[in-house]
């Protein structure tokens, strides 16, 4: 079994009297891409800031690489890359000056990251522009480069694709998968369900400062109620199942939410004159909405 790269135990954080994060527990294993899901204001960024020692938890403990964050902050940050969705920059620097600045803060010799610039189609001319004159997308690309060009052991990304066009998003997903193959563990916070579903192995869902789900994507999918739709050949009176709830009924078309064992339901459906049938795999969107709408696991 892989070691934990990040371990968060019973972490609580107050802002004044407001409890932003409440007894949060989860862990990220070495070599995995971990998705951290939640709507705006759920506590994702607060958790990330606590991992980076920017915020200090009021209770609980955070360890990264097996070391307590508060006491080993510099050593840990040396092996981490971080990118915030609202990537901030120094107005008066050019892109290349900024990358040199970041290198100098890491006490590393600056080597022009040609490979990364190629991935994001960044030329020397663009990198020599003042950052204050760059678009949000361009800044985000530089933000990605600064977070990975020192080859970190752990990459912490807080909504990293905001501002990137779909082509650049794909380039970014390719990059993080490649980094992951080369051994970088990735912690990925997002409210974009599709990108989490596409990239992540393990998922934690946070709502109102509490972890409401912490599972592999496969297990999460198993837990969720699935929609089943079918069309009948001719009208039938009283279409009902013991482990499903009817969502809609339009003429011969029916839609049910399956809450229990699907085998039981299939047996009950045997007697029906079904001409068309659909039982799609649950998508992360469904899982997510399930947690947020029906208050599952509360």
């Amino acid at each position, binding site marked *: 079994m892989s070691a934990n790269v990040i371990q968060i135990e019973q972490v609580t954080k107050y802002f004044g009297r407001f409890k932003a994060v409440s007894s949060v527990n989860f862990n990220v294993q070495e070599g995995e891409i971990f998705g951290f899901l939640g709507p705006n204001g759920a506590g994702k960024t607060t958790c990330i*800031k606590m991992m980076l020692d*920017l915020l200090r938890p009021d209770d609980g403990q955070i360890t990264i690489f097996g070391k307590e964050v508060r006491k080993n902050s*510099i050593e840990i*940050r040396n092996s981490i890359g971080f990118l*915030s969705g609202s990537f*901030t920059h120094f107005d008066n620097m050019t892109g290349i000056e900024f990358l040199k*600045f970041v290198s*100098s803060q890491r006490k590393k010799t600056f080597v022009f990251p040609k490979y990364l610039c190629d991935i994001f189609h960044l030329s020397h001319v663009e990198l020599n522009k003042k950052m204050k004159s760059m678009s949000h997308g361009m800044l985000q690309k530089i933000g990605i480069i600064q977070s990975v060009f020192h080859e970190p052991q752990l990459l912490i990304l807080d909504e990293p694709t905001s501002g990137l066009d779909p082509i650049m998003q794909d380039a970014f997903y390719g990059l993080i998968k490649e980094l992951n193959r080369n051994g970088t563990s990735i912690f990925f916070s997002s409210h974009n369900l599709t990108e989490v579903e596409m990239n992540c192995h393990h998922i934690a869902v946070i709502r109102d400062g509490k972890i409401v789900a912490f599972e592999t994507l496969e297990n999460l999918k198993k837990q969720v109620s699935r929609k089943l739709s079918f069309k009948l050949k001719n009208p039938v009176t009283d279409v009902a199942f013991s482990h499903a709830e009817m969502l809609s009924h339009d003429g011969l078309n029916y839609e049910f939410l399956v809450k229990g064992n699907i085998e039981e339901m299939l047996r009950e459906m045997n007697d029906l004159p079904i001409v068309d049938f659909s039982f799609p795999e649950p998508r992360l969107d469904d899982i997510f909405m399930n947690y947020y709408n029906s208050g599952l696991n509360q």
Partner: protein
Amino acid sequence: MVSYFKHILKSHLGFLIFAMIFIPLIQFLIIEVFTGLETKPFIDSMMKMLPPQIKMMVGDQFFSSLSIEGAVGFGLNHPVVLMILIILLTAITSKHIAGAIENGTMELLLALPVKRTTIVSRIWMIVAFISLVLILFAMAGLFISVMLYDHLHIDFIEKALKVGLNLWFLMMVFMSFSLMISTFMKESGRTASLSSIVILVFYFIDMLSGLWKPLVSFKPYNIFHYYQPQNLMTGQRSLDQNLPVLVILILIFSLVSHWQFQRRDI
């Protein structure tokens, strides 16, 4: 350190260049005016007409000893010079601590392997260096002017350098104070305003204490009491009376800044 220094210099380059030209120029002009013109008879007659309170407010000692020493003291205590230095120092400290927290660059910086104490120390050192350079520029303007007047001798240089040193320590107190306020706050504008207002209040109380006798007993509690360039130039006060208090304040404000920045949320 060098790249961070460059970044801070670039952020304030315009105002810095202005200060580097204006401060020595005003020193040069003050000496020129008071040495080149026959101002003594004119100012003497003016002084006779002024009420005593106003005489005290504008610098009794300076006018009563209309000398080149008095002019140097006046130049290095000129409200505009002090204002420029204070604005610059409070702007740098507030922008690079509270302002950086406000706009998120502090988050970026602290996600890198940089110690919090390093950030505070860097800013402290950079601002101390900038204020030293500006004061040296002021001294240069002053010395050039005095040299033209042919009054530059060792005793004078020593006294003027003492005033410069005293001014530098005073500015370090203001910078450390502004740094301390910055570490408690999250907005650059409010931090700079608060620091400047507190300093201005002390400045006006110091001025008023010359007019209103009940305030005289509070003078030792005012920071400006520990910077009296006219008295230093005329030998009525020694640097030893000023520096210990200023050093203690610098230490207190700097230590509180480090302590607070170390423990605060970003």
